[in-house]
């Protein structure tokens, strides 16, 4: 990407506060980087003449964020995004690790296609882990080869936008996944109850005359899947929870000891169906933007830990596609570049959770769900860090977008919290930190 540089020599990051996952706290730490590798991390490090000193006063240093739900569209839909442009977007949002979804063309449903993604991502600053299709061609009928795909690098199994409607197939997927101890990841939506719904069914859909997808289409599926996962004792991960009652069901299931995790997107933690009143097709997303009560319940779910991770469901679509009418425009919005600003505004500025809790859901929890490497600040390894301003207010605009697609409904919105730099793989992606004097 355009503004990354190889890190050479000694770089001293001083004056910032670091997020420490073990204690889940923010503490003053100086970090010494040499040729891109972390070589020292202390409450204070004395600068010497051979160091380039970077003053991080007022900034936070965190392990790179992880987003377990992105669409990088490769292979097959590179006009929307590819691994490279997707990685650039991830870096701009502070993410150094992502899990990409298998709704590609063809679907990522073989060990070869899993390996293709794993090999191609090696030269990128962002670690990309593929979630493989749970059934062949994401058709919800025959299972894919979980064993071989796991060996090739798959971190979970999902038909993503195509929910597994057949309960018996879902049962077998969950059972079979126990063999590799990877989660089955479900986009929980009963497609028949959803019908031809284009937005949340409620007072706004009625006022706009748009066909509605009722909240129960998600809740019914969440209920079914929780019960199946409980019955077979397998790991279930529920994607982008959007309805208050779903949060309740998952909370109850966790109390019963069901091996379930779930995520909420930044946009579902901020926007309601009122945003659709403009008929802006960038507000068309699956699951749809719900009501204020749902947003409040999601925030509560994040606060009490029912919702484990915050993700983006970064879903690039071309301008031409989004300029279609509301029924034909594909659902989804990009989200990587704006995620921190939205999440901080929604959760920290509103005092739902503190900054360390937010970072736990952006750094630690997502890696745990997907079983990704979770060693942080390892000395002798390439520094993997995100440096951000936790309180900076800024207005999100197109110029902040690195994704190949620009389909965001947040342009013109004031966000809080802004990424300044990302260090990974011996390089720095700089978005506004002054390096040198």
């Amino acid at each position, binding site marked *: 990407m355009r503004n990354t540089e190889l890190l050479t020599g000694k770089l001293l990051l001083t004056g910032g506060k670091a997020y420490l996952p073990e204690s889940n706290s923010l503490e003053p730490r100086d970090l010494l980087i040499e040729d891109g590798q972390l070589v020292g991390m202390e409450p204070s490090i004395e600068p010497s003449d051979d160091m380039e000193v970077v003053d991080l006063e007022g900034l936070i240093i965190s392990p790179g964020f992880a987003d377990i739900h992105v669409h990088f569209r490769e292979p097959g839909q590179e006009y929307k995004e590819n691994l490279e442009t997707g990685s650039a977007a991830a870096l701009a949002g502070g993410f150094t690790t992502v899990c990409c979804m298998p709704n590609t063309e063809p679907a990522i449903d073989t060990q070869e296609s899993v390996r293709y993604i794993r090999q191609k991502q090696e030269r990128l600053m962002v670690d990309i882990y593929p979630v493989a299709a749970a059934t062949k061609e994401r058709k919800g009928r025959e299972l894919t080869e979980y064993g071989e795909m796991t060996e090739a690098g798959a971190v979970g199994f999902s038909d993503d936008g195509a929910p597994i409607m057949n309960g018996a197939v879902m049962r077998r997927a969950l059972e079979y996944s126990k063999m590799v101890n990877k989660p089955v990841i479900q986009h929980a939506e009963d497609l028949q109850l959803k019908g031809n719904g284009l937005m949340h069914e409620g007072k706004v859909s*009625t006022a706009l*005359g748009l*066909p509605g997808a009722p909240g129960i289409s998600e809740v019914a599926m969440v209920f079914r899947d929780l019960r199946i996962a409980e019955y077979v004792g397998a790991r279930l991960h529920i994607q982008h929870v959007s309805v208050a009652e779903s949060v309740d069901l998952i909370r109850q299931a966790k109390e019963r000891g069901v091996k379930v995790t779930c995520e909420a997107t930044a946009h579902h933690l901020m926007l309601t169906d009122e945003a659709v009143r403009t008929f802006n097709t960038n507000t068309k997303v699956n699951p749809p933007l719900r009501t204020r009560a749902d947003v409040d319940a999601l925030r509560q779910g994040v606060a009490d830990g029912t919702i484990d991770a915050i993700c983006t469901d970064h879903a690039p679509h071309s301008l031409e596609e989004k*300029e279609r009418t509301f029924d034909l425009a594909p659902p989804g919005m990009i989200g990587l570049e704006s995620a921190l600003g939205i999440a901080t505004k929604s959760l920290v500025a509103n005092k739902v959770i503190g900054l360390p809790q937010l970072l736990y859901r952006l750094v630690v929890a997502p890696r745990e769900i997907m079983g990704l490497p979770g060693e942080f600040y390892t000395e002798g390894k390439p520094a993997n860090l995100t440096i951000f301003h936790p309180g900076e207010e800024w207005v999100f605009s197109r110029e902040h977008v690195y994704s190949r697609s620009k389909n965001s409904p947040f342009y013109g919105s004031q966000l809080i919290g802004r990424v300044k730099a990302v260090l990974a793989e011996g390089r720095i992606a700089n978005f506004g930190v002054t390096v040198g004097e």
Partner: protein
Amino acid sequence: MGALSQKHMLGLEYVPKADIELILDTAFSFREVLDRPVKKVPTLQGKTIVNLFFESSTRTRLSFELAEKRLSADSINFSASSSSLSKGESLRDTIQNIEAMKMDLVIIRHNTPGSAHQLSNYVDAVVINAGDGTHEHPTQALLDLMSIKEKFGHIDGLKVAIIGDIAHSRVALSNIYGLRTMGAEVTICGPPTFIPPFIEDLGVTVSYNLDEVLHGQDVVNVLRIQQERMQSALIPSLREYRALYGITLERLNSLKHELTIMHPGPLNRGVEIDSEVADSEHSIILHQVLNGVAVRMALLYLLLGGKEQKGESNA
């Protein structure tokens, strides 16, 4: 004469009472033109209007075309079924050519809610929504308001019931917005599968019992029943629908007060309305058709006239 507060006519949801009053007053003065031996005025000479119909329509389209001709505007027609547009073609692509021809006003009928709003973002021309899917059909509601006002002399305080498939009706939604703005009491009535959720939030009363509703109404607006609703499991049969919600002669005769009957057309005679009812002295269905031309003339005049004034003040 005053001016409208908005550039386009996309729907009645946000149109203030003063605008509706202005449109209706203007429409009544154009009604007078329609009764003349020579029914044409030069008001919009030199203005170009495109009728963009992505969905088949007979009445609305004829009504707009006639209104354009009566005002001496130049008009062209573009028809294509929305489904015939390839999925790869955006609405913007479709209209870009038309925009290049320097149109003053675009009338759009499309099967997708919000399409008129989207169009207004893409073109400089004035946009009139001639029906966007199950969202709004503002000119239909305006002609309904005009017909009610013609009959009663006022709209405020009247009791109006809308009967039928409310959930799939742009006519219902625009009527609800317009009638509420003008101060009428609105009841909607139909089987529960035809009633959209949270419709009460729009300030209407909901009932599933037609016989109860009909007592005490001044006006009923009867919506057309679409045959395909049975395939989507919304109602079991037209027979039962007629029995429960049809405006039959027996129902009308059982009422102790006069009830005015409206229908946006085309009629399914013998289903949602009996022929004898549609053709009775209680029906103002044909007034609606004539008022449709007058209302559309008024709207074209007000929207294009307003633009002209703006141009002059800039010159």
